[in-house]
């Protein structure tokens, strides 16, 4: 036994390590369960308008989580988010609206369609580095939107496509509460699956590809496969989000899928925190809620305040510009996003009055 203590980690040390890991996981799961329970509980007390907001946030979060995995973990910066959302949405209009396939099947199939497009883009993207990927996905955006516009004009005309109601077996998702619960389940599933994948081998391989892809290929990671599979998988999730959104809104037109939309998603993952799954959710909530928050804050300004008139007249332009300001602020001051910011705030308060010297708590 004595020899073992010197040469190898002991059984008890190993047990201790496992205990620590399980404890961390328990904390993580406990946190998730508490948040989940609160979210479900809110479904029964929230106003319709807030539930609508919640659903919008959850669906956006699904897309944000996928983009975050692609950009934050795999290192592929993509401006093609709107293109993949459009692919999912328009596939849903065809399969659900014209062929009347069942709702869940349409979601899956739309994801597959978006995944296919992701695969088609993924192959040439192997040669692209950094800036060229951004430009390539930028071009992809315009081409997909152009195709979708032509399709819409030829088949349906100005009003866009209308979708039938979403039915799962005998349950029709109609009320705001129904949609809130459904999208909550959807985002919970996405968080669980993506987080698990990113914690495992695939996630580590992706991180290696992101940081030093030549070195990664030397260590045996198939970089091409990782990139293409990454594109396909994340586009699949984005396609599902696009299709869900199509059913939720009930109507699909190409006007929704602007470059600004793609930029909004990139803002979500920057503000939330690149590489962090909960960060993507938080970022989505932030970007979606920002205009409402500004409206509320501005409403609190007394009308006698000298700038109040100016602010009220220009409020919409201010709202539009403010999230650009946040992108800049976060990039300059807190590149880790809200997640890192939260950790830093926690450390500050925990170790106050001692200054944080940068030592990990």
């Amino acid at each position: 036994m004595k020899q073992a203590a010197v040469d190898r980690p002991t059984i008890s040390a190993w047990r201790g390590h496992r205990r620590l890991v399980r404890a961390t996981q328990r904390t993580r799961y406990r946190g998730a369960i508490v948040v989940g329970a609160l979210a479900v509980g809110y479904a029964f007390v929230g106003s319709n308008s807030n539930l609508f907001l919640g659903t919008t946030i959850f669906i956006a979060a699904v897309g944000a989580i996928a983009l975050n995995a692609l950009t934050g973990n795999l290192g592929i910066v993509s401006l093609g988010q709107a293109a993949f959302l459009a692919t999912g949405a328009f596939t849903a209009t065809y399969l659900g609206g014209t062929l009347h396939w069942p709702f869940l099947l349409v979601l899956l199939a739309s994801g597959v369609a978006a995944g296919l497009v992701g695969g088609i883009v993924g192959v040439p993207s192997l040669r692209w580095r950094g800036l060229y990927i951004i430009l390539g996905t930028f071009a992809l955006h315009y081409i997909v939107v152009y195709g979708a516009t032509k399709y819409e004009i030829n088949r349906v005309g100005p009003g866009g496509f209308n979708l039938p109601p979403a039915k799962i077996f005998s349950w029709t998702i109609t009320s705001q509460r129904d949609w809130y619960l459904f999208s909550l389940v959807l985002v919970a599933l996405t968080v669980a699956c993506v987080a698990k994948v990113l914690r495992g081998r695939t996630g580590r391989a992706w991180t290696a590809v992101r940081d030093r892809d030549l070195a990664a290929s030397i260590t045996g990671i198939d970089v091409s496969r990782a990139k293409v599979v990454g594109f396909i998988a994340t586009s699949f999730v984005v396609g599902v989000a696009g299709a869900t959104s199509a059913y939720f809104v009930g109507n699909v037109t190409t006007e929704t899928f602007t470059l600004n939309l793609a930029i909004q998603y990139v803002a979500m993952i920057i503000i939330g925190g690149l590489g962090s799954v909960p960060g993507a959710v938080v970022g989505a909530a932030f970007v979606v809620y920002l205009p409402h928050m500004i409206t509320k804050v501005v409403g609190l300004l007394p009308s006698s305040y000298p700038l109040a008139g100016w602010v009220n007249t220009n409020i919409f332009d201010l709202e539009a510009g403010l999230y650009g300001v946040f992108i800049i602020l976060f990039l300059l001051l807190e590149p880790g996003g809200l997640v890192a910011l939260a950790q830093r705030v926690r450390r500050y308060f925990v170790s106050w009055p001692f200054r944080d010297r940068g030592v990990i708590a």
Partner: protein
Amino acid sequence: MNRKLRQRDLVVLASSASLALFLGACGGGSDDSSNSPSTSGTSSSSSAASGKPYVIAEISDLSGPVGVFDTPPYDGMKAYFDYLNSTGGVNGRPITTKASDAKGDVQTTLASFTQYSGQSDVIAITGLGLDTQMDPLLPKLASTGIAAISSPSSTTSGLPYNKWYFSFGEDYGGDVTATAQYLSEKDSSAKIGYVAFDSPATRSVASNLTKAVAGTGVSVVGKEFLPPTATDASQAISSLVHAGATWIAIGAATDPQFTSILQNAKVQNFDGNILAIAGGGEDSNFKLASTDKYKALRSFHSPSETNLPGVAKMVSEVDGAKPDKYYYSMGWALGEVIAKALTTCGSDCTRAGFRDALETTSFSDPYGLAASAIGFSDTCHQGFRSTFVYGWDGSKPVQEGSIDAYNKPPCGGS
């Protein structure tokens, strides 16, 4: 190290403060209370009218490229309510407004709609006319039981009659009728070159126009669509001119596109006529064109036409900045219709009651702002039926005639 630490401390404190503010703002407003703050522009509730306000909620593109079209009708409507409130309001109650920017996006539109329809003091929704934003909303109007009045444009799928949808705007169907009628009267062998920014709606106008003139001497010889953000119409105009167009019809275009179209018409030495169908009828557009060959369709008189007694009266009653866009008059007129319906509806007006009352607003136009009587009936939900044609006399736009654009039954004659 010290400087960096201070910077980080500042970031931490600033973010904690913002978080506190955020939570405070978050908890502060609850949607169903009738004390929700206005989201845009405080509308005055003056001393003359007291009592619980009637609330009209506007959802439209108040910023961005279309903002220049959607903001004047809202301003005009608000101004009318302000004037009315200063003379006692309606049934002793003031009329106030709230607004939300749809940003050209269906999801934002729906979110605002859900929010406003959840507020019990909101009695009707205005704004919203583009097909893309209104069509998904049409079924929800019925299921929520709230009336929507579109301005300054409207959706064809809600016309001529949809129980909860009212149009106080220009719809593309009316545009086509007006254009076809005007051209067949003015120039029976007109060759139309159609140019507009590319959208499903403008494409549908182009094809409907082609159908509407089929069999007459008028024909459509070319259709050109510009990408919505493009500012250069050189190739489009050059093609239309080469195709032999004698009339260039501008379907819908942003300001820079208008200018580019007009400039390129000069470059190509185009000596035919130019007709602006939707938009392009503001005084500034006429000044830019500076030719008596430029005609525009306007559904209402511009507030700058103070030689007309009704317009002068309106302008004198406006409190604050003087308006100059003709969509402002459209908003003022809409305010009149709404106020009339509220009067009929009574001081305990419900949403359903208001909807019914709208249909009883008998037709009139006290300020003489429109080309025809304004109002709604129980068979026709198009609020105004005709449109003016304006030309240029060298120094200002002048009215040259009017067309019954929405004249098919049930809205108009045979």
